[in-house]
């Protein structure tokens, strides 16, 4: 096992993989539906959006931040695309491109406010969570918008050689982020900033730009998720995706990332995502109330985050996860 906090593979991934397999086996035994590939395939589609938000959330958490506004950006982009197409008459792919731009700009604005006004990440994204949701309501005007062309909806429900098109998008997103984080310059600056922002700045890493780019990426991912979401459901509402930020953060934490920044990997988060998805799908299929799923997610987030901080503290020999060094007190 490699000792570096940035290595993509490690013992955590093995444990997660084992846990996911055990979970899958367990549900396969107790639930007949869980054994049916078509049901599983169908269910997996509900998880695509979180799957796209999670790796971008990892990037944000790696620099020691947190993005609570992604679900609101998702809703804002969704209603914007549909209205731009259906009411402003923009060709759908132009509308989608505009949506991507809106998402990236909303994310970059988050980062810019943090850097320019020196406001902690949590406070900024807590505020923009409300602001972007409010804007989504303003764009939606309390209506459900629909009427998307077939070519666009193919992204949501089409199959390419038997594989759902949204899976292909999902795989592409993970591949790009894996490359950027673990093999790109960008990834180095991300880990450097998260490991010690001060030291990174003294090593001439442009930490302010890194922060803005990380949040812009998070916004862009939310926009991609919005495209898939609207394509699948053929509608957009201002209250779409409520609570998705919590699921994304839970995936990241399950994947072994430290909330204090600097530690975590894309494969880990992928396994965290698969694990959470399997668990929730299994519970869903067994008819367990959504309430209990919510409860498990919250409890798991806390328990695993505490575990991660312990592990990180043991590895570096000091209290990196101590309350004094976290997003709110940056």
């Amino acid at each position, binding site marked *: 096992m490699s000792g570096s906090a940035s290595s993509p593979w490690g013992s955590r991934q093995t444990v997660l993989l084992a846990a996911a397999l055990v979970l899958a086996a367990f549900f396969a035994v107790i639930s007949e539906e869980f054994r049916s590939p078509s049901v599983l395939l169908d269910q997996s589609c509900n998880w695509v959006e979180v799957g796209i938000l999670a790796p971008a959330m990892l990037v944000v958490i790696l620099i020691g931040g947190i993005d609570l506004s992604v679900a609101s950006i998702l809703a804002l982009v969704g209603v914007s695309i549909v209205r731009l197409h259906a009411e402003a008459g923009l060709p759908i792919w132009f509308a989608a491109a505009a949506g991507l731009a809106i998402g990236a700009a909303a994310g970059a604005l988050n980062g810019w406010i943090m850097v320019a006004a020196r406001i902690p990440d949590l406070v900024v994204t807590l*505020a923009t969570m409300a602001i972007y949701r409010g804007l989504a309501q303003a764009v939606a005007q309390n209506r459900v918008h629909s009427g998307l062309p077939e070519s666009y909806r193919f992204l949501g429900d089409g199959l390419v050689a038997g594989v759902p098109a949204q899976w292909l998008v999902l795989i592409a997103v993970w591949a790009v982020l894996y490359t950027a984080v673990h093999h790109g310059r960008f990834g180095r600056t991300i880990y450097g900033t998260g490991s010690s922002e001060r030291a990174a700045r003294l090593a001439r890493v442009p930490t302010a730009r890194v922060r803005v780019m990380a949040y812009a990426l998070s916004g862009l991912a939310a926009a991609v998720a919005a495209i898939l979401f609207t394509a699948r459901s053929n509608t957009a509402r201002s209250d779409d995706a409520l609570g998705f930020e919590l699921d994304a953060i839970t995936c990241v934490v399950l994947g072994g990332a430290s909330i204090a920044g600097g530690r975590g990997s894309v494969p880990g988060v992928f396994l965290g995502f698969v694990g959470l998805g399997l668990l929730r799908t299994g519970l869903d299929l067994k008819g367990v109330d959504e309430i209990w799923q919510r409860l498990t*997610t919250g409890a798991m987030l806390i328990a695993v985050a505490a575990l991660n901080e312990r592990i990180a503290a043991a590895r570096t020999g000091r209290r990196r996860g101590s309350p004094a060094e976290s997003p709110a007190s940056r």
Partner: protein
Amino acid sequence: MTSTASPICLCRLRGVGKSFAGLRALWGVDLDLHAGEIHALVGENGAGKSTLIRCLAGIIQPEDGEILFDGRAVELTSPRAAHRLGVAAAHQAPELFLWRSAAENIFNVRGLPADPFIPWKRVEEESREALRRLGSEIPPRAEAGLLSASQRQVVALAGALIARPRLLILDEPTASLSEGESERLFRVLDELRRGGVCILYVSHRLGEVLRIADRVTVLRDGRVVRSDRAGALDADALVEAMVGRRLEAYYPRAPEHGAETVLEVEDLGDERGAFRGVRLALHRGEIAGLYGLVGAGRTELGQALAGFRRARGVVRARGSVAYLPEDRIRDANLPGLSLRENLTIAALDRIAVGPLIDRRRERSLASSLREKLDIRAPGIEGSIDTLSGGNQQKALLGRWLATEPEILILDEPTQGIDVGARAEIHRLIADLAAGGCGILLISSDLSEVLGMSHRVIVMREGRIAACFASGEAGEEDVGRAALPEERGPSRRHSPDASGPPPPARGAWSDRASARLARFLGQREAALAAVIAAIIIATGWRSSRFLAWESLRDVACDTAPLALAALGQTLVIACGAIDISIGSMLALCAAAAALMANAGCGAAFAVAGAAALGSLLGAVNAAISTAGRLHPIITTLGTLGIYRALFLEWTDRRWLYLPDTLLDLARSGPFGVPVSVWGALIAAGLFFHFLGGTRAGRACLKVGDNPRAALAHGLRIESTRWLAFAILGGCVGLAAVFYTARYGTVQNNTGMGFELQVIAAAVLGGAHVAGGRGTAAGALLGAALIGLLASARPVWGIHERWQLVGVGALMLGALALETAIARLSPGRRP
């Protein structure tokens, strides 16, 4: 100047030893401190003086030997324990609570009076008295964060004085005092000595030491080398004892340097006054040693030359500048990342192909650096934390070698590393110079500076004091040039005095602090003015808005918000935050509704909700403490958990409140609803708690400066528990009043409540980094947000803009505050 005939030994150190990270700082130190004497402690930087006084002050604990007080061995496990034995210390760079007043900080050591309501008048009077005794004009109400470095030191001195110590430890007390202030201090010290106090006096000013001390102890390399009566010593004897005759170390010689200048500096002055009027030139292949005492401005000069500190003047660099900071653990290491990543982080251009890193090229670069620098590590993939200090330092040097710099600024490159690694680093530095790199070597190690450099530049009190060519000067010449001048006209220029010319910086800083204090005092006034303006404007538009019923409704809407904002202010002041309060509110409301519907009286239902809220808040605190988790993650988790529990409990059905609860928001004494009274009474209690009790002040201090809080014996964790539980109780009350207003508890009750509450607290002046917040501010912040919600329909603005407005308002207020802080000097960076 004579000591008593038979001195009483107050404190005795026997064989005290201490090491840091395997490096010995103190070797078996013996020291007797007598009652009624001034005992001076002198030595070069790194001789072990501060380690020794930190042991005596209870900040660190020695490994070997023992400390005896009044003949009994004691364990100084904390500053509190030391204080109980009568030890008070004034350190050179004291840890103060930056948002608190000078007076309150003066009471850090002694502790604030334990009265039920802290007698601030008396605190201020005693502080003013102590400050006056020291000849200082600092207003007791001045905010500590706005004081200059020297004023902060005076505050620490005053604090040590009012603690009425038996052993008073002073670390460089006159370093930034004016002549008059110093004289006054000496008079005070003399009085104390007559009163039987022992004063351990650490100073570089040898003349001063010889004048006021009864006895002098000289430390060198962690050992006592001389201890004698002051009368038996003179300055030359002290310098000789301090510098000593070292073993002649071998230093590799760099070849003659070129004539071409790589770095030129003219009239460079630091914006915060750490140095000024600096002029120097660095040539290709030259090693220029920069020597000076701690606080002489060398580190700051290095930072400014590297571009990490703002300075005014001309800097002409021909080529790239690399900078190795002094504190490598904090400022250079990228902990958790591998040696490879640490080596290449500054040279990504060399190993990247477009946006991607070429792994092969990176590995070969890292491996070649590891070989060249002889970094002893099992490989390049291990984490940098696992390397020894010397190997870490070599790796950080390697990081800059990878960028092939023309200019290299090294700040204490061999501090705290073993002899072998030291020699290797010296060889590397010489090699680099031979390769044409211009090197500025900042060091407090005289022999290193003299041995390595072509030229030695000496800094003293922020200025370049002398410049010696290699071989032109010995250790004693350089050491003497670095010592502060004895009393003379130029002494008035303390390092802090570089601000605008008269009036002196002290007065100017006071004025700025007064202005800022006035502004902060005006925050409440400004909020009140905005509130009044909105009421008047809205009333103008619709006169019905000003009717009694309408205003009462506004107050009713505001009451729950105000209650929760008061609690959140407390939690934020502690340096934490709770975002689960929306779900908490739903749970507490359900509890109250179920109790009331089961026939409980309103009072019982309210008490039940408050108790449940306190419990939920305590759970948040418990999870954060036990899991060492940041409150964001904890409360993000409990946000979901509490909501789930609520839905499970109510089975997703709406709960209707009985009239007993609805009446709380409808009627009450003097026609004002009970809920409004509740919020007002809570505000009064908070006002007392935050302003007048030690527990309340502790909340503010814990968030202000956790290190200072620890040093002064405040319990951080229990303070946070208390704050979270109080917030929970407030949310419990708010829950009842909130639902009483709407009549039902629904599935989405309380969603988005946390944002409104945090916004109210922040608008009211709670500082998100902790340390600040007032009851009046929270009340007014809540009133503003409640008012906006009520006035919105009058202006025909759709409900959906409410949250947008609240979020934007909060960000705007914070951005405004950052802008104001940038304009005011001395604020924490």
